[in-house]
């Protein structure tokens, strides 16, 4: 008794499972996210800079937001001093989203690509954007 056909069927399933991402992406074009910073508020800035350097923001903005939240809600400290000594009011809606008022073309651009859906907007208000 060998049951060769069953073993081969099993192996085909195995190869299919482990090469699934390759098979799935065959002939599909992938587009990188391009977050846009062309909002009115940012346009008026002398220096087009975020609260922290870009490479830091890119990787750590969720951690920063978490710290902001804790700092504002738990410690009642609503001022954040950026890396360059500039002061910012700690607020998701009134600081981040004032500059990044184009949520759909900025935050969502990356988040959709990564399939993350921050639940912040269950409570916090999204900036009003013109219908595209």
């Amino acid at each position, binding site marked *: *008794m060998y049951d060769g056909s069953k073993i081969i069927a099993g192996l085909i399933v195995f190869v299919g499972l482990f090469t699934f*991402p390759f098979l799935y992406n065959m002939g599909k074009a992938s587009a990188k996210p391009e977050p846009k910073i062309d909002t009115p508020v940012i346009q008026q800035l002398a220096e087009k800079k975020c609260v922290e350097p870009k490479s830091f923001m890119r990787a750590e903005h969720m951690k920063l937001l978490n710290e902001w939240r804790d700092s504002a809600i738990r410690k009642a400290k609503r001022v954040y001093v950026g890396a360059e000594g500039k002061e910012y009011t700690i607020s998701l809606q009134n600081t981040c989203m004032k500059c990044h008022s184009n949520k759909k073309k900025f935050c969502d651009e990356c988040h959709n690509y*990564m399939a993350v859906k921050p639940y912040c907007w269950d409570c916090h208000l999204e900036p009003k954007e013109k219908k595209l």
Partner: protein
Amino acid sequence: MRALFSFIVVIALVAIVFVGVKGANLEFLFGVIIPYAALATFIIGFIYRVVKWGRSPVPFHIPTTCGQQKTLPWIKDSKIENPSTTAGVIARMALEVLVFRSLFRNLKTDLREGPRLAYGSDKWLWLAGLAFHWSFLIIAFRHLRFFMQDVPVVVQWVEGLDSFLQIGAPLLYITDVIIITAVTYLFLRRVYIPQVRYISLAADYFPLFLILGIAISGVLMRYFIKVHVVGVKELAMGLVSFNPTIPEGIGVIFYIHLFLICVLFAYFPFSKLMHMGGVFLSPTRNLANNSRMVRHVNPWNYPVKVHTYEEYEEEFREKMKMAGLPVEKE
């Protein structure tokens, strides 16, 4: 000693990437070449091992299972424990693969005063094993979001369930906590129980440390030493569409994580981890106990030259009659 050796090997692996990426800028080697090579080794090696197992003949069905075999109609048979049908075998295999049924029967033995030998139930190994394997599966499945442009809703549901405690940002995954706890338990168990320590080899500790290393580097990367996650997905998408790119500034911890995974993949076919494929090939799990209903021919039987009684009688009938022996045909 064997544990220490495995630990040092894993640390050395981490050091290799660290130096390679930080010191020698070998991002392309660690981000593209090694992942492809590791995956190829894994798939080819896995098939080779399974085919090799598949080529060894199973001479007979192995009915050494607990549970009543199917027999006379008024005796209740145990349909899953001792299956006589393919459906029963599938049910038994599914229970084995999905909930580790045979591990659930794990016992511990104690020599008590008397001297008296006592047996007791011991479910910790089963529980930790189950917690570990399921977390691993869920984590692997969640990673599909790095390999697909439009992430299917199932992946997003699993991710949502896994992070539903909504602790911190980025959200804490429950499986991250479970896998590290479970692997740590499985390691401590090996060191703590003298009998288990005695039979544990470097090949037992190494996969544990390797998986622990993968989990820890992943956790560090997600919650502590942050990386450029969008860049990570670009790299992953490049790999799966055979269009490799190395985005700038991802962070060395990502390459450590990736390299440890590659080592796991490449090591897999050569190790005890092959039980992933092997469980489906275990004769005591995958064969129906129907030896009273179906004749199983041993594949290595050579054709035996037989001399039937009819032929025998044909040959010796006269002599048998003379000796007064009964014959079937006059």
